[in-house]
């Protein structure tokens, strides 16, 4: 039994049953399928997270974000600037207690180099209802190339707990035709 020492002293010489061996082979092969699926998707799939990231500081990042806001703000909404950057450009979204700053406006089908960084604690970029989720760290600047493929109004929910105002931290992205 499993609660007593093995009945055969040389238990490692006992044959394993055929059922077990077949299952081990199937499970092992399935593991390989799942492993190579991730690699395959890097070539064939369209949804891969970039490895591009830099060390930064809140001050440096805020300066770049502000330069973008100054250049491309098209209107104000709820005291938020709405920024419409040119397609293909670098876009700086700032996470801070408890805002995603500023509101962004993208054009459908165009791609943007979206930079993400935090001014204070960790935050979670959760684009809804698309459901893309990326962790945002202070001191690190991540660059993700995104290509919105449907027009509409999208929310950015914070999904990393960031203190008492966490549940009020919602941003917005518009995608226009």
């Amino acid at each position, binding site marked *: *039994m*499993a*609660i*007593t*020492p*093995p*009945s*055969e*002293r040389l*238990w*490692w010489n006992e*044959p*394993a*049953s*055929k*059922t*077990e061996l077949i*299952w081990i082979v199937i*499970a092992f092969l*399935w*593991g*390989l399928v*799942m492993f190579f*699926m*991730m690699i395959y998707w890097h070539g064939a*799939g*369209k*949804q891969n*997270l*970039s*490895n591009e990231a830099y060390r930064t500081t809140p001050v440096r990042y805020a300066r770049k974000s502000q330069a973008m806001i100054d250049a491309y703000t098209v209107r104000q909404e*709820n005291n938020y600037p709405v920024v419409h950057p040119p397609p293909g450009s670098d876009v700086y979204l700032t996470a801070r207690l408890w*805002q995603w700053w500023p*509101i962004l406006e993208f054009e459908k089908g165009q*791609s943007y180099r979206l930079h*993400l960084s935090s001014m204070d*604690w960790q935050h*979670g970029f*959760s684009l*809804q*209802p698309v*459901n893309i*989720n*990326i*962790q945002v*760290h202070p*001191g690190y*600047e*991540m660059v993700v*190339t995104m290509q919105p493929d449907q027009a509409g109004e999208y*929310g950015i*929910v914070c*999904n990393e*707990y960031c*203190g*008492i105002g966490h*549940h*009020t931290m*919602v941003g*917005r992205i518009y995608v226009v035709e």
Partner: protein
Amino acid sequence: MAKTAEFRTCPTTGLKVYLTAEKLIKANAVVAVIFLAVGGFFGLLVALTRWPAVHILPADWFYLALTAHGFDVLLVWIIFFEIAVLYFASAVLLGSRLAGPKWAWAGFIMMLVGAVITNVTVLRGQSSVMFTSYVPMMAEPAFYLGIILFAVDALIGCFVFFGTLVIAKQENTYEGSIPLVTFGALTAAIIAIFTIASGAIILIPTLLWSVGLVSYVDPLVYKTIWWAMGHSSQQINVSAHVAIWYAIAAMVFGAKPLSEKVSRSAFLMYILFLQLASAHHLLVEPGLSSEWKIFNTSYAMYLAVLGSMVHGLTVPGSIEAAQRGRGLTKGLFEWLRKAPWGNPAFAGMFMSLVFFGFIGGISGVVMGTEQINLIMHNTLYVPGHFHGTVVAGTTLAFMAMTYLLVPLIFRRELMFKKLARWQPYIFGIGAAGISLFMMGAGTLGVARRHWDITFSDAPLPFDYPSTAFLMMGLNGMAAILAALGGLMFIVIVVGSVFFGRKLGKNDKPSYPEVPPQGAAVAHYGSSDTLKIPGTVMLVGIFFIAFVLYYFVNWKYLSEVWPLS
């Protein structure tokens, strides 16, 4: 050599039980159950708050309760119980005296002190940083201090276990190799060493940072090392509850492993590969390469998953072989149909096996796929997954084991037998419901650790789909069911332990039935002649579900905005 007077012989199993080990097992198990009650209560409050129609706690209390819930059940309940399992699997199963009983007592007391310090600190309200305490969010120093104290003293329990193995070997208390269950416990203890070392490596500098002696802790480094503790500690649970599955199969059915070699190799896979799982929490972080993520998140080509899939065959397989050996050979499933479903030890164990595989296991692998993690990270899918592993899997298995510990170790007749028959079902179904509904809400994008998904105070509000609200309501109801099951468990166990009829020296408990320990299967390896078609069918269903669900999620991923 220990004196015979320090031992008693168990009238049911014939095991020689060292009395000091027995006392330590009792103490650890009782404290574990108390923290399960406390942590479970916080969990119920959390679930009721996340049910938008109920929304019972204000925001500050919600985040406080969630921090306490995570710490008390994920760490304190489980590790106290695991220490009891370690002492059981070494001293009791090997019929040996326990190494360093004074150390074991000191470790027990200091663990308790640590757990109390952290709980009190959380209740003071200035340390609602969640169980994970990601820097640069800062808790009061005592929060980290309590966890460090708790973890480091749990290490003593591991060393007492190792010491006991050495003593048993030297004093020849058993023949040949250690039993499979002890081997599983050894796996858990080895992983525990790695886990606790990782915890100490990151929490000690964090403690120094919180008192101002260290100026900076890098958030990404913190997360990488913290999860080497946080995720690996869940792998201790996996090893421990798989060992318990084998133990219950042995005690209730007299089941033997189909082959010692296969089952032990599967445990070995855990030791070699499970520690890589820290990567599961880092798949959408900046600054880590895809190569690193793919290798680590897959436990080096899914070799630890292979271990679990093997146990998924060998545990029910050994039960089937034992039952068929008793003559329950009709059709595919007579062995299962006529299993003792009214015995809470078996019912809990078997549901734990099924839920851990189908709910916790499959969802974990899918979510841990590098790219698929993008549509799940930090949504409620994550707690949905780990309530499937830790609650429906580990906690249910530990509860099932407790039904055997009460008569055999506490030497008390189990009280409220009718309630005990139902308890595993109520708790198990509640826990499975919690997992599934949270995973459902997570698939719809709902954030975890979030007080108000209506965003009523947010300057730029957003609406989750109405199905998400339905999921949160169902999750709340499932949580009530699980809490009811938890309460039943605590009433039964605390009642029996303190007020149950004492069993005399030679009394055998009447319930749950532990049949005479005759071998149902002559020896392992005999399954060549003893087929297990029912288990093959179950495993086949599992595999099909796994493959389908895996590719469905790739399809979901392919529908989101292109990213590169």
